[in-house]
């Protein structure tokens, strides 16, 4: 009952303060609206990558050896049993025009469409993993052993060998990873359609006698032309199961993630303000425990940031047409973010109370929030920022929230954001424990009074 009274009173106190309402509610609504429109061009076609995604390609195969093996298979395999020497030679000559390496590197990765999205370098396996660790590349694409051989089998013969192209993505580059995986899926899909088309031609020719297999060169030319015509657009790739992020989406989530930090700032002032106004002492005299008061502040900051989130999501949805994705997932992320903010606010409250001045709370509001906003991507997407900032983004609570919101907006499930959600929960818990530790022992209290009798009497 007491805590409920404290919570209601604190919420009323903050919400009756016009200055506080302007900062925590009005300002983010204005900023998200302005930024959504002002930076719309930076998010053209829903893509917010200004630079191409860097990948490393690892070749586990030996191209010459694979070609030699293929020639041998062509001459000695089951496929050539019913063919004459001349036909086999003709097929062998034509197959030399089908170069899977050239198709993959030049015609696919080198195409205008893909090269806009992805830039690659070919490295060995060890170097690739080092580059990935250092985040110098967002993903490593590994072409398997016998890649050339298997692809030639697939492209020239009626048989199909399995070709597993492995894509490894850095966990912090998940959005870029999605792009790389989607592009590779598009490659695989295009190749499959080519192979199926080719098989129909060859099988029909073989069913009618090998002699009917005319103009094999034309068939092979058809194969390569289909690949050349393969059109990959990142927009199309993302549409499949994933929604692209618009400027309104981005800045609604970015401003929300940033401005909930101001709730922590407000909460951080409340305890010392109460002490200076003597209402804290009055509550203690009335029998309220200081940890009860502190818990009240935690809940107040949690509710305040939840109110902010609710207002901003509703506003952005109806006014800016932001699609937040799954309501449940968004609510879970919001609860975790509000919990983290509440923990942080309570810690600032304890530390400010202990210090006896507002320097920490002032510094938090005027500097730390801005730094966290920068690191977390509330001003600009982290991916377009210098690597140093990208490497420090894990320090920002708002960055974790923003990352999670964007993923859910893109159509990802809870499993894809669970680490960030858990991290937010952990941050809240750690700060809450710290705040209790800071407040403990701050004041003399009657509980600890040792009832020393008048020693000086």
């Amino acid at each position: 009952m007491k805590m409920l009274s404290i919570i209601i009173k604190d919420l009323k106190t903050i919400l009756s303060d016009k200055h506080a309402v302007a900062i925590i509610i009005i300002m983010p609504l204005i900023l998200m609206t302005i930024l959504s429109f002002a930076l719309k061009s930076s998010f053209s076609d829903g893509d917010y990558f200004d630079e191409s995604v860097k990948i490393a390609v690892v070749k586990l195969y030996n191209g010459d050896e694979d070609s030699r093996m293929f020639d041998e298979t062509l001459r000695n395999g089951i496929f050539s049993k019913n063919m004459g020497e001349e036909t086999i030679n003709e097929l062998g000559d034509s197959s030399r025009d089908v170069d899977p390496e050239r198709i993959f590197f030049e015609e696919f990765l080198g195409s205008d469409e893909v090269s806009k999205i992805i830039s690659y370098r070919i490295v060995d396996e060890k170097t690739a993993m080092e580059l990935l660790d250092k985040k110098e590349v967002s993903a490593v694409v590994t072409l398997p052993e016998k890649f050339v051989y298997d692809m030639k089998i697939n492209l020239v013969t009626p048989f199909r060998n399995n070709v597993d192209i492995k894509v490894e993505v850095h966990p912090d580059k998940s959005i870029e990873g999605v792009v790389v995986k989607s592009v590779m899926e598009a490659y695989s899909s295009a190749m499959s359609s080519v192979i199926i088309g080719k098989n129909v031609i060859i099988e029909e020719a073989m069913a009618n006698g090998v002699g009917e297999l005319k103009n094999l060169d034309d068939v092979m030319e058809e194969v390569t032309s289909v690949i050349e015509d393969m059109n990959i657009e990142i927009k199309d790739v993302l549409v499949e199961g994933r929604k692209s992020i618009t400027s309104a989406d981005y800045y609604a989530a970015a401003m929300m993630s940033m401005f909930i930090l101001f709730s922590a700032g407000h909460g951080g002032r409340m305890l010392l303000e109460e002490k200076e106004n003597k209402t804290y002492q009055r509550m203690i005299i009335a029998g309220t425990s200081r940890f009860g008061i502190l818990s009240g502040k935690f809940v107040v900051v949690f509710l305040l940031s939840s109110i902010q989130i609710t207002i901003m999501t509703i506003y952005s949805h109806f006014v800016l047409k932001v699609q937040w994705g799954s309501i449940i997932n968004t609510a879970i992320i919001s609860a975790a973010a509000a919990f983290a903010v509440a923990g942080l606010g309570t810690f600032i409250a304890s530390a400010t109370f202990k210090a006896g001045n507002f320097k920490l709370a002032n510094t938090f509001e005027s500097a730390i929030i801005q730094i966290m906003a920068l690191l977390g991507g509330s001003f600009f997407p982290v991916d377009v920022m210098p690597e140093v900032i990208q490497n420090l983004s894990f320090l920002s609570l708002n960055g974790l929230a923003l990352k999670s919101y964007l993923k859910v907006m893109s159509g990802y499930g809870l499993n894809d954001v669970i680490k960030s959600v858990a991290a937010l929960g952990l941050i809240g818990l750690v700060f809450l424990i710290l705040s209790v530790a800071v407040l403990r022992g701050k004041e003399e209290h009657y509980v600890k009074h040792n009832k020393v009798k008048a020693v000086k009497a």
Partner: protein
Amino acid sequence: MLKVENLYKSFGKINAVDGVSFEVKKGDVFGLLGPNGAGKSTTISMISTLLAPSAGEILYDGKSIFDNQKSVRQRLGVVPQEIALYPTLSGYENLRFWGSIYGLKGDLLKKRIDEVSDIIELNGRLKDRVDKYSGGMKRRLNIGAALLHTPEMLIMDEPTVGIDPQSRNHILDTVLRLNKQGITIIYTSHYMEEVEYLCNKVCIMDEGKIIASGSQDELVEMIREKTQINVRLNRMDSLIAEKLKEINGVSDARISDDTVVLHGENADTLLAEIALKVSEGGMFIKSIDVKKPNLEAVFLHLTGKALRD
């Protein structure tokens, strides 16, 4: 009801309260008088369970308040020196909050808010925000917030600081009214006249110590100072001082301009004789000013300094 025994409180090397002892009985209006920094507020903070003493004991109804904090806190009402209210909330919201903090709820809370707002005479303004109130209204609400849970004892720490005389009189009358309703009161002030007006028992504090205590009469008696009577005459005769000195009970008389300054005991009986002697001398009295010894004089006598130094 309340017994303070050898109470000490140190802040570093400073002894804010230095061996204070006193007793407050049920129905008392007990005054703690002393200049700023005398240790009154620190003593009050310890009695109200906000501060732990460095040493000493405080007993409430014979039991240590350290062992019975919860029940003692419910029986005490504390009016802090500062306006400990929420300025952006209304008077009603403030009273409701403080009532609920003391565990009141529902109809009882509403009833107590009505009763208290009658006592502090703010019923017509309870819907207004506190930051719109005058200084006196804030002070009254500050008192009201301490009355909601119907305390047995009200501790008031300089409740009239910074307000106009009219509001001050209102608060002083409220204090007396509350006392008549059965509430025991501890009242701290550095205004001598407030303590004189309200309190039946007084402790005078200075530099953390109690330098005198008792009823007002006992304190005045302690310094053995006599009543001063200033008699202003239509004309001055140099012999009049000697004639007035002959009156039984007058210890001293001297002339100062057109006024004879006398000291003596029992001023009421002296006045008639003074008038007679003046008339016999062919003069008449233009004015008489009787100055009885007060707590200010007691403080001055004991410390060599004025209360507001």
